[in-house]
């Protein structure tokens, strides 16, 4: 194991054994804190209580990376606790830039923003998601956590070219890659891919990962397998496969 990633919100607790476990991991490994609940894209005021908890956690654990999502999850004070897609409009971009800057100011450091899997597209979107994400990174100074599985899931669900997505992200801003397994559901005559994190990474996503490595170089990659968790050997084998592909790509470009 090279490093660990933890969901920030799981460690907001004031005390208890969970926090102690994370302290033991942090003593020996580099740590990434990955948030799922800040609702950065919401038009409600930024949740200061949530942000303060994150500031405290980042101060206590000094992680190598801190990340959140290109999404929103609450409005009018009601939280859906889900990663909902944004419309890719100029207004939404201005909003996200302001919010990401506010979070980075509060934390005193850069954050990474991750693309999410989506099951719908808004009719008012003006640009493809990768252009929106690249512009957000350029204007806010955030890095990008490129979830290769999410690129593939959304590409298949919405019929765009996953390779065009990867090619549309500037080489220098990707600081981390996520890999994961997903489910293929059938809705009427169509297939719909759902981001489930409960199985092996599929071949098409491994291929896209190799393409991403060529473009973004050697960045930390993580297998997200947080539902139907398998035996440790299975997970380690999956991580080993990711390492091997990284080594192959490095040899090819050396």
């Amino acid at each position, binding site marked *: 194991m090279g490093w660990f990633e933890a969901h920030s919100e799981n460690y907001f607790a*004031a005390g208890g054994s969970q926090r102690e476990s994370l302290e033991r991991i942090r003593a020996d490994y580099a740590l990434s804190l990955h948030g799922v*609940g800040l609702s950065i894209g919401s038009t409600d005021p930024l949740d200061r209580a949530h942000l303060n908890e994150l500031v405290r956690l980042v101060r206590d654990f000094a992680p190598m990376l801190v990340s959140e999502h290109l999404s929103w*999850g609450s409005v*009018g004070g009601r939280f859906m*606790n*889900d990663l*909902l897609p944004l419309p890719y409009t100029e207004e939404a971009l201005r909003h996200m830039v302001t919010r990401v800057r506010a979070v980075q100011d509060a934390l005193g450091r850069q954050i990474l923003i991750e693309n999410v899997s989506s099951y719908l597209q808004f009719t*008012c979107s003006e640009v493809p998601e990768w252009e929106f994400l690249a512009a957000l990174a350029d204007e806010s100074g955030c890095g990008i956590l490129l979830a290769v599985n999410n690129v593939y899931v959304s590409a298949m669900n919405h019929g765009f070219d996953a390779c065009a997505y990867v090619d549309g992200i500037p080489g220098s801003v990707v600081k981390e890659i996520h890999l994961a397994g997903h489910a293929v559901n059938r809705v009427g005559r169509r297939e719909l891919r759902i981001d489930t994190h409960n199985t092996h990474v599929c071949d098409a996503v491994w291929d896209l990962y190799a393409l991403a490595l060529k473009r973004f170089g050697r960045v930390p990659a993580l297998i997200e397998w947080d539902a139907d968790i398998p035996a440790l050997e299975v997970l380690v084998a999956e991580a080993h496969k990711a390492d091997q592909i990284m080594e192959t790509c490095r040899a090819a470009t050396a």
Partner: protein
Amino acid sequence: MLPLRELQLRFCAAVFDDALDAVTPWIHGDEIDAEARVSIYRHNVHEGFTKTLALEFPVIERLVGEDYFRQLALLLLAEHPSRAGNLHHIGAPFSLFLRRRFEGTPYSYLSDVAALEWAYQESMVAAEVPPLDLDTLRSVAPHAYEQLRFALHPACVLVRSAYPIVRIWTTNQQNVGNEEVIELSSGADLVLVRRADDAIEFRRLSVGDFTLLGALARDTALGDALEAARALDPDFNLGAALRRFIALGVLTGVRISASTSAAESTSAEGAPQ
């Protein structure tokens, strides 16, 4: 074009208020229409809420069954949607929700079992605080005893029930065969929930101990708390009780104050922070 806020409010109404039409005109549809696409998100929200609640209340889920638990979870979601990006808090109103729903029915005990399970959750994540030092207490002049007010460890929660909730909880753990039939009238429980070496302990208390601790938890002065305990247990031994609670790490701070108002001047007697 719809402003971002308006779009989000409409999406939220579709998810929480079943108003799918509110947002579908702004969502692309093809062989999978806009309504089916929004429904995926609504389903995910329902499942995420139900799954988290089930993790927090495994005994309630086991008592009422998975299907009915899901119905209860969705009713709770409608009344008390999550108010934070951290789902942990959704279980806070569940016991009261069950009480209102089942008051006066044979299922009124469910609310008390839920209170015990929520106390378990709260105790697990509470801050760690060192126990009160006995010497601190010994340094207090006897005439000031009556005015002492104590701080309880954040991981300590008191739960009172007319039903044998500890036995119900224990019998309904995953690793225990639940063949046992429990008579609801077979006992009332006065429970101190506390954390000991990262395990959660349910400790049944005597009526005197429970009354004293309950009063102290409400920031009642020791003299009045003792009076309340003696009213229910004339033989209540205060010294023994205090030593017991300090040994268990239940009491973590003490101060002398004639008033319950925190704004009043208090003389801290070395209460550990």
